[in-house]
């Protein structure tokens, strides 16, 4: 059967199957792993290769020039550069999580390269002590490194993103350690890195502050090699007597013990997932040891490099790359020889179906109940396959089975197809990222996309992000920026077109960010052209300012209608330019100008005056001066009535003169003049009356105050000075006299001459003061009968009110008055009778 061949490739270790599919034949030529230092990034990342300078150069067969070369996992050269960094031998080389290559040389200098073999400045050094004592060994983890010096000191960079080195506690031991391993900060209780140092007869745990010796039976005697599992929970130890041990990270319990019968420690010791450990000596077969049972031997005639992954080990040789992994459970159930699991039967059924055999139906009926699990197993197994045709047949089996399932999550197959398409695309030898499905899930799609764009695989990244429904902005943005950096020679207009063509693919992308990048690369004109396309003013305007396009910035900010943006531009220009230049820029633009004026009105009076003077708006300066004339009055320290009016009047006079400069402002000019005059008079009044109650009151109030104080002469003087009309004079005087309840004077006043406004003010003033008797003196004199009626009504004289109203022949008024007297039944009926009588003649 077809299935047999699949399982035939598996090896059994205890009760688990392992397989070792070939991922790529290596495309590189003439690379000998044994003569090079090689750094392979996990998650199918790039491979950095450089000649090992601790080995003798083979004359004529190798160039004397050392080159750092970076390949994909499939051996395709990405980039190379000549290595001529000072600082002695290259001791350690490894990739960070961000796929930067860290190279540490003898004197403790750390060089960083990106995937394009470009040095990332600045270089960092591990410190002076490290410089004085050579670095002899480096142990890397995902995002940090621990270095050992000749003097036995340990230095650490806990995070490559921060790049600040520190020294760890001194072990105090005389000898150099035999071996070291690191427990990553994320797996330690303290959150700081811990180093396991195999030294002398035991193991030390070293961190920043302390050194601790590990106690326990299993660490009797020197330890030769140590490796921590990728989840930080287990430890593989190779002892001096040739045993391989696996314990948990706290050295409790032996999970595996095997005697390798070798006094020499293996050159490489690596975890394969969490299930087994690989040991490699260059002259014996690769050894895989599991918790129980006989180990497995793999035979190679080439040097090897073991690259641990979360779910297996990649095995790199000069010619091929393989992936050694434990066969996933779903795959085992389907392909295990003689398997009668539902999944196996389903897979078999498809085979029968394809051959039009009735046995297909029989198989299906056998597994009817467990069909959903069978389908699920086929989908899962497909996900674990690297071979595309096997992926396909497994998915077809799943799809075939699903057709007979009523309640199965149908999008599972679709989802898996999508995932596999992405995986197959990046596994392509040209791209060379051989991710397993588990690695992909752990890495996350967004990191994968970030890695693709980092490797300048923009098109693929774009397609993938589009395919799996992720935002393409990151990709396009990175592409645009890389494009600008990479092609500084392309003329602005051409470059703009190339960029726009792609940028428009992504709605809402920040043109301003691309423009900022162009500006950083010295392409100011291109930046200006790009920022023109930014729809978001809030991003566009600040950038325009930073590239010196102030005028455009002001225009765009104004167009946006966002006053905050306009202020941003205003303050920027205000600070940078000469006042006159600034004034010139805003003068003809209403919104910026008005906002500036509004701001300056509160906080920058003098500057605002300069502005108005520069634009010839003298009246505005005058208004400002006039407003300022109130300021001294506000000062609580200054007592009223003092010569304060001096400076105030001076300011008002100044304002008046400025108003007089233009014909349009004669009213203001006159008003200012009168204001000054009033202040002077009020000041004199305060001096003569010794009462500080005049300044800053109105002309009317001044007159009333004079009358209330009995100073009729002064009141008359104010009246004449300001040509107060007779009408107003009467109202003021009547009310003033009523205020002091000088009824005698009021009556006298009423008789002076016939009042120009009649007697209504007298009536109102008396009624307001609740003096009915006084009011009655004037009510009969009211000429208007309706007024008379209402006045009577207000003082509660219903009959008189009714009489007057009926004389006025005003029905509506009678009705209204009746309402006023509603409570009073007698009065109420009186109005009704009158109104009835009234309506009669009006009909005729």
């Amino acid at each position: 059967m077809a299935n047999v061949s699949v399982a035939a490739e598996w090896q059994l270790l205890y009760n688990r199957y392992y397989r070792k599919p070939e991922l790529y034949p290596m495309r590189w030529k003439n690379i000998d792993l044994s003569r090079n230092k090689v750094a392979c990034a996990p998650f199918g990342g790039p491979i950095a290769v450089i000649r090992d300078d601790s080995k003798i150069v083979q004359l004529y067969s190798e160039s004397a020039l050392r080159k750092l070369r970076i390949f994909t996992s499939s051996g395709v050269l990405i980039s190379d550069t000549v290595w001529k960094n000072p600082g002695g031998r290259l001791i350690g080389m490894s990739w960070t999580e961000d796929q930067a290559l860290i190279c540490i040389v003898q004197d403790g200098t750390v060089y960083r390269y990106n995937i394009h073999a470009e040095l990332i400045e600045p270089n960092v050094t591990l410190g002076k002590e490290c410089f004085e004592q050579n670095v002899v060994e480096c142990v890397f983890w995902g995002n940090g490194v621990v270095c050992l010096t000749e003097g036995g000191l340990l230095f650490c960079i806990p995070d490559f993103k921060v790049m600040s080195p520190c020294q760890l506690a001194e072990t105090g031991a005389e000898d150099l350690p035999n071996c070291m391993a690191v427990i990553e900060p994320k797996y330690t209780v303290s959150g700081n890195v811990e180093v396991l140092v195999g030294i002398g007869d035991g193991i030390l745990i070293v961190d920043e502050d302390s050194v601790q010796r590990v106690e326990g039976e299993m660490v009797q005697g020197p330890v030769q090699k140590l490796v921590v599992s990728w989840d930080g929970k287990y430890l593989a130890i190779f002892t001096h007597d040739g045993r391989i041990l696996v314990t948990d990270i706290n050295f409790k319990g032996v999970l595996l013990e095997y005697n390798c019968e070798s006094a020499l420690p293996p050159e490489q010791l690596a975890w394969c997932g969490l299930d087994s450990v690989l040991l490699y000596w260059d002259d014996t077969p690769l050894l895989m040891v599991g918790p129980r049972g006989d180990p497995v031997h793999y035979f190679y005639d080439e040097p090897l490099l073991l690259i641990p992954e979360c779910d297996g080990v990649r095995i790199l040789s000069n010619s091929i790359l393989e992936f050694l992994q434990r066969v996933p459970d779903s795959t085992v159930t389907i392909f295990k020889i003689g398997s009668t699991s539902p999944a196996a039967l389903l897979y078999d059924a498809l085979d029968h179906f394809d051959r039009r055999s009735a046995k297909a139906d029989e198989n299906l009926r056998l597994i009817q109940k467990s069909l959903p699990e069978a389908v699920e197993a086929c989908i899962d197994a497909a996900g674990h396959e690297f071979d595309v045709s096997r992926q396909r047949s497994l998915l077809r089996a799943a799809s075939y089975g699903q057709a007979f399932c009523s309640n199965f999550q149908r999008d599972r197959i679709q989802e898996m197809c999508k995932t596999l398409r992405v995986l197959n695309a990046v596994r392509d030898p040209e791209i060379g990222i051989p991710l397993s499905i588990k690695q992909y899930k752990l890495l996350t799609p967004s990191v994968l996309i970030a890695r693709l764009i980092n490797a300048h695989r923009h098109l693929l990244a774009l397609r993938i992000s589009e395919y799996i429904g992720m935002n393409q902005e990151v990709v396009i943005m990175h592409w645009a920026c890389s494009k600008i950096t990479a092609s500084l020679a392309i003329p602005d207009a051409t470059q703009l077109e190339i960029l726009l063509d792609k940028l428009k693919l992504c709605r809402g992308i920040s043109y301003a960010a691309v423009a900022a990048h162009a500006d950083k690369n010295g392409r100011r004109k291109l930046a200006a052209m790009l920022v023109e396309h930014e729809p978001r003013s809030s991003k566009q305007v600040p950038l325009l300012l930073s590239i010196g396009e102030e005028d455009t910035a002001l225009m765009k900010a104004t167009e946006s209608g966002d006053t905050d943006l306009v202020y941003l531009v205003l303050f920027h220009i205000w600070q940078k330019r000469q006042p006159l230049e600034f004034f010139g820029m805003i003068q003809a633009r209403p919104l910026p100008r008005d906002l500036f004026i509004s701001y300056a009105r509160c906080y920058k009076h003098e500057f605002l005056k300069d502005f108005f003077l520069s634009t010839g708006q003298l009246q505005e300066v005058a208004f400002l001066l006039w407003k300022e004339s109130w300021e001294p009055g506000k000062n609580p320290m200054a007592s009223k009535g003092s010569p304060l009016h001096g400076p105030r009047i001076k300011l008002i006079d100044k304002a008046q003169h400025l108003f007089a400069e233009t014909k349009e402002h004669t009213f203001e000019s006159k008003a200012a003049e009168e204001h000054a005059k009033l202040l002077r008079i009020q000041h004199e009044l305060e001096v003569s009356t010794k009462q500080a109650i005049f300044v800053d009151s109105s002309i009317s109030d001044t007159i009333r105050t004079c009358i209330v104080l009995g100073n009729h002469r002064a009141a008359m003087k104010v009246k004449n000075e300001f040509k107060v009309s007779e009408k107003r004079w009467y109202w003021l005087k009547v009310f003033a006299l009523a205020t002091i309840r000088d009824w005698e004077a009021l009556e006298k006043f009423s008789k002076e001459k016939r009042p120009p406004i009649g007697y209504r003010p007298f009536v109102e003033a008396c009624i307001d003061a609740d003096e009915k008797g006084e009011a009655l003196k004037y009510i009969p004199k009211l000429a208007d009968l309706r007024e008379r009626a209402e006045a009577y009504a207000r003082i509660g004289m219903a009959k008189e009110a009714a009489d007057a109203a009926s004389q006025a022949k005003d029905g509506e008024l009678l009705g209204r008055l009746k309402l006023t007297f509603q409570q009073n039944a007698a009065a109420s009926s009186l109005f009704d009778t009158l109104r009835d009588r009234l309506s009669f003649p009006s009909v005729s």
Partner: protein
Amino acid sequence: MAQIPNLDNSPLNLKSLREQSQRDLVKILKDIRGKKCLVVEPKLGGTLSLIIQTSLLKEYGIELRHLSAESVQTDCSKVVYLVPSQRDLMKSISSHVHDDISKGLQREYFIYFVPRREIQCERILEEEKVHHLITIGEYPLYLVPLDEDILSFELDLAYKQCQVDGDTGSLWHIAKAIHKLESTFGVIPNVRTKGKASGIVSDILDRMHTEEPMNSPDMALSEINTLILIDREVDMVTPMCSQLTYEGLLDEFLHINNGSVELDSSIMGVQQEGKKMKVPLNSSDKLFKEIRDLNFEVVVQVLKQKATSMKEDYTEITTASQTVSELKDFVKKLNSLPEMTRHINLAQHLSTFTSKPSFLAKLDMEHTIIEASSYDICFEYIEEMIHKQEPLVNILRLLILFSESKSNWLTVKRALQLVVEDTDTANPDDIAYVFSGYAPLSIRLVQNAVRSGWRPMEEILKLLPGPHIETKRAGFTSSPSFGTLQGASNGLDKIADGRRSLVLVVFIGGITFAEIAALRFLSAQEGMAYDLIIGTTKIVNGHSLVETFFETFG
């Protein structure tokens, strides 16, 4: 009764908006750990009382203070200012900080700007050399539901700033608020604007749509069908007139502030000498909901009727033998007794103002001006007011009304039938009942805009200030299926669940209670296809609107 209005009956889910604002505020306060002193600008404090109960705030370890010129007295080491983005407040805050420094007090300062930080404020903090000492944040409160159908942007000074200072910041704020509404309730397909400011808001709103496209493919599901923007400048006549609805009069005489009035407790029949009390006024009060928009004359009658019927019920209950269920009914009615008492007290208090001859004379004058019948009488009346030294606001209010009713007023008045004779205020058939015979111009415009759009009345619109624009949002015209759908339903489109679709009417520069009453009247008419929701920069009356133009000297 709580001052925070119950929004359960709102045609739009305003409750969710309010809850979001609550959450935003609580998050800000929670994120600042430990005890803190919250210093709120007083007006903003009033606004916040419509969103969250002060007692709730205290649960977050807060000492609550109002911002004033005096420095903050507190033991807390953290001082959190919650203030609108206004320049004048920055000086106070700066002086507080300087004061603390001079006293050797070490405090952590936070300023949360409402609704967003603005560079003009930060600039002053920089000039006062305190900017680096302050952590700055934002509380994006762009609008507050005042009631089931009213949203306020809380921009007291919007009209003055636009008209006098040329500062259109408030228009951006309005656009942003509408934009936020759209992100919750869908993009509004139809926009009708009248007036300069309305045009600007609509422009900014369009810009916001291009800048931050809304990623909703189902634009057709927008809950609001039409946006009508009215610039207060278009109709300055209406707010200058004395409002005659119950709520309008309450505002004119007692000043409704954040949905409540404050008055002497004796007026409300509570015998506590000289004590003030707050009376909440919103639609959670069933009786108020029923009478708030009626002409005050009618309110008095309605209240009288209700009192009488209750009295009758009472006599019946004491004389005749009653079944248990009848007793129950009576007790139920008794539950409404506190509301009855409250409004009888208020109405009684109001009539002391409305019965004054001076008030009647003023009403008379307002009508004379609106009818534009006699120039001389009006002129003399206003002159006399000046001579009598009446408060400046009153004089200006009438003067504005007087000057507004010049030039095209006669034509507009006639064409839009603004003066309606024989208005039956008890059973009104036109919005003119709110001013006893004058139909507010602003609402006539809205009435026409809702009914038939601007086109049929273009000639009249041209006589009023500012442009008028009618647009259909791009996203909608491009979709042919939606276009036909619109056409077929002939504007009478209903949302699936049977609710009427909505028109959002936004007044830039403020709306009066009388106008709100008129809009509610329209909304309640048979044959009206829409529910109306009102947005406004602030609820105003002639008094408060004119006062914003004052500048205090000396």
